[in-house]
């Protein structure tokens, strides 16, 4: 077994275990900390796929900025609500769940069987230069559009979370 395969199994085990621990914690703060661990392991998987720029972005933006925002809001809501995690009890949920799992596993098995091994990476694949070239030439319109999305999100977040005069 090659070194990269060992790294892959270790990182993917950490990713899946972290994701499971995230959604099963009763306290949202513990869940958020496990989600940060998941994102670090995921950045390792990105690096294994030669996506070095995205691995750095994953740690800086996801594990850094977005999760800090989450932890900040969790701390701000004064009492951590410990919710009971029960499975849904409505009739037929088991059947629907099994059907969803079946369809997903069927499509996944088809895709995995067809994919095979990737070709050797070209020189400079996944570097900042390659992605910068892509974003500023071919993808210039989505790149500019997403900047407008971020601007609208910032203004919208301020407007939604602002104290209105009747509440203050």
């Amino acid at each position, binding site marked *: 077994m090659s070194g990269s395969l060992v790294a892959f199994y270790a990182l993917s085990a950490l990713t899946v275990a972290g994701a499971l621990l995230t959604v099963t914690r009763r306290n949202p703060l513990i869940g958020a900390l496990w989600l940060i661990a998941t994102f670090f392991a995921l950045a390792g998987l*990105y690096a294994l796929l030669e996506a070095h720029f995205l691995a750095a972005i994953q740690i800086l933006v996801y594990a850094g900025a*977005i999760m800090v925002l*989450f932890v900040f809001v969790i701390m701000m809501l004064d009492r951590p609500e410990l*919710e009971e*995690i029960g499975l849904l009890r409505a009739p037929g949920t088991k059947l629907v769940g099994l059907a969803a799992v079946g369809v997903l596993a069927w499509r996944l098995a088809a895709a995995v069987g067809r994919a095979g091994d990737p070709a050797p990476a070209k020189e400079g694949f996944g570097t900042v230069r390659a992605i910068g070239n892509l974003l500023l030439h071919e993808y210039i319109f989505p790149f500019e559009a997403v900047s407008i999305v971020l601007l609208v999100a910032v203004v919208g977040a301020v407007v939604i*979370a602002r104290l209105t005069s009747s509440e203050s």
Partner: protein
Amino acid sequence: MIPTGHFLVVAALLFAIGAAGVIVRRNVLMILMSIELMLSGGSLTLIAFARHHGDVGGHGLAFLVVAVAAAEAAIGLAIIVALFRTRRTANADDANLLRDE
């Protein structure tokens, strides 16, 4: 060399765990975090196929997913703060102001 299918399995597991979290959890913060997990599963698939085909376009899309996820987290958390301020709860089942009872 790691087969592309291995990454697809991990991505599908991430997506499924996130989807289960969205359905089962009732705390809005946990629902938002589960959505982040689902987005990560999609991004991992994009990057795995970018590597498979040697096409850096998947990286561009994954980059845009990160930006949209940041916008979504900002808006979602603002809504949670506003919800907590008016209803004193972070439980999705208690946010039923618009429901016809």
